[in-house]
């Protein structure tokens, strides 16, 4: 099902959608593009270079309550948290970020199904858009992704200039398009060709940087390489890369509150932080930037494959673009591609 939406009709479309969904869409905040819950749809920026954060936080919030507790005498009252009921539509998500959600699904569904996550997940509509402004840090094509293939989303947009070329992906998505068909026109052959051309052009803008097969093969024998010492020195072990990454999912669980009542929350944590694995008594199996940086890379390009059969990086390039120390994942992977001996 391929349709055409005039750009000026986008607002109307979102308004229709907002009857049943909370609309999450990219908006401009200062210089940044950020996904926000929007009411004023004129603010929505469908065509953008890179949102600073990925929209993963709408499924897996940076900080969420697990339950509340309240003491009365020696007894405690526990009130489990509830997830917002209103369905969400994440509009304008780039393919890389959409793929990332599929990656997260695996972890949160691993043996123990994380209800909080899936409650939101199943209640969320994904409307993706072809990313036609990749930048120097993007490398989705190197990790088996494309800037336009949004597998797993419900509806996909492509900006063709004056119009959006729209593909219904899932049944749910197709139904929504159907319900609003007064807004669309049927796509024609030339529209399709135009889109194909656009896609091809963008592909060229994101040249493949390394052979991911080779990289993942080499991972197994590179754990003890001296390479890690060298490349990790720069890292200042902040959480920027992990917090911006659409696939990073580590979290911490904490109690917050006062003497008598409070809540247990979970909030994002980053494997780059020193205290992440620091155990009571002071032992820390990953106590320097080397081991921590290595963990991050191995987690994404080795462990994740072993446990979930996929790498957990979508090549969005955020960790590269935003790393204050200039750590460059692509360079790291290129070194790994060359193999351990290359150092």
């Amino acid at each position, binding site marked *: 099902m391929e349709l055409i939406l005039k750009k000026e009709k986008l607002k109307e479309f979102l308004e229709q959608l907002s009857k049943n969904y909370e609309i999450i869409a990219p908006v401009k*905040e*200062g*210089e*940044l593009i*950020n996904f926000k819950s929007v009411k004023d749809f004129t603010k929505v920026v469908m065509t953008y*270079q890179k949102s*600073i*954060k990925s929209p993963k936080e709408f499924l897996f919030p*940076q*900080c969420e309550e697990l339950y509340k507790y309240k003491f009365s005498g020696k007894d405690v009252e526990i009130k489990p948290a509830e997830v917002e009921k209103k369905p969400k539509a994440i509009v304008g998500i780039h393919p890389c970020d959409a793929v990332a959600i599929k990656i997260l699904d695996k972890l949160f569904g691993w043996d123990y199904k994380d209800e909080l996550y899936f409650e939101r997940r199943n209640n969320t509509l994904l409307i993706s858009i072809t990313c036609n*402004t990749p*930048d*120097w*840090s993007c490398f989705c094509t190197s990790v088996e992704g494309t800037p336009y293939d949004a597998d797993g989303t419900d509806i996909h947009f492509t900006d063709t200039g004056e119009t959006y070329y729209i593909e219904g992906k899932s049944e749910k998505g197709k139904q929504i398009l159907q319900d609003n068909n007064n807004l669309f026109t049927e796509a024609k052959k030339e529209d399709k060709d135009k889109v194909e051309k656009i896609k091809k052009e963008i592909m060229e803008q994101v040249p493949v940087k390394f052979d991911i097969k080779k990289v993942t093969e080499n991972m197994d024998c590179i754990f003890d390489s001296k390479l890690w010492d060298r490349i990790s*020195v*720069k890292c*200042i*072990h*902040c*959480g*920027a890369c*992990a*917090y*911006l990454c659409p696939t990073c999912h580590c979290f*911490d669980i*904490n109690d*917050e509150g006062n003497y008598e009542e409070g809540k247990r*929350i979970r*909030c*994002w944590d*980053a494997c780059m*932080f*020193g*205290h992440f694995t620091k155990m009571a008594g002071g032992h820390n199996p990953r106590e320097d930037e080397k081991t921590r940086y290595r963990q991050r890379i191995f987690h994404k390009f080795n462990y994740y494959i072993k446990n979930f059969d996929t790498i957990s990086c979508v090549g969005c390039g955020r960790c590269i*673009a*935003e790393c*204050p*120390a*200039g*750590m*460059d994942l*692509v*360079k790291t992977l290129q070194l790994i591609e060359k193999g351990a001996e290359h150092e």
Partner: protein
Amino acid sequence: MEDIINIARELIKRDDIEAIIGYEKGRAPFQTVPFFARTPEDCDKLIMNSLCVNNLVSYINQFSGKVAIFVKPCDAKALVGLLQEHQIEREKLHIIGINCQGALNPKKLRNAIKGRMVKDWSINGDKIKVYYESGEEEFNIKDFLLDKCPACDTRTPPIYDELLGDEIKTADLPELLARVKELEKLPAAEKQQYWNEHFERCLRCYACVKICPLCYCERCFVENASPQWIDKSNNLKSNKAFHLIRAYHLAGRCIDCGECDRACPMDIPLRELNLKMRKSVEEHFNYVPGKDIDVPPPLSTFKKEDPQDFIR
């Protein structure tokens, strides 16, 4: 350029120098990244230009031996701070000072070229020339300086073993604290709104803390867990507490290298807070950080005659 490579090559040959801390070219257009040269061959990669933005001082303690380090005036001020606070040993440093006429904001430049592929670029006087695949373009350096640079009054490092570059004359500097003064004039409610909007956005990734050369605590107060000083929740309440205390901890110590500002992925204007603290410390205690190794930081001492107008 030749210069620094030659100097570095000579230095690294010395037995006592473990590494040279400098910059190399990054993959992105206009990007330079910290680089640690350990062999004469490494030295060839070293560069030094107006796009070298990172404050390298934080890396010194990564090395156990003596290191040589390239420092801009900002970095050197940070060194002063660290020496003042017993964090590094002067004997373990060989400081190559660089006179600085201001550093450029690579992100701004990248925005200006609007995604075109850059082959190369060069700096000539007050112009930067960018060579694309086809064609070239010239920009005014002035328009791309980092925020901290135009008003900077320290163009020569306050501490060094050898000094490179021509002496830089500055005249008619714009006022450093102009923005602070502007914000001060806002009514309380607007100030609060301004900052709440920023604080609300904070990710608590601590890039600002970790990059700061003067945030060297082994355990930052935000990591203090028993008791938890600042809730881990990322909400206005705890973000605000974090920001207030962070800025306060740098009062009288922040040397305005602007690294926190640059590091922050969420564009939170940390520098404005830092400058407010700078203003406060200077106004009340007549102290400017990054100048004198031998005086204790202003919040570790007092004078009996310190002002106390607001105290009842």
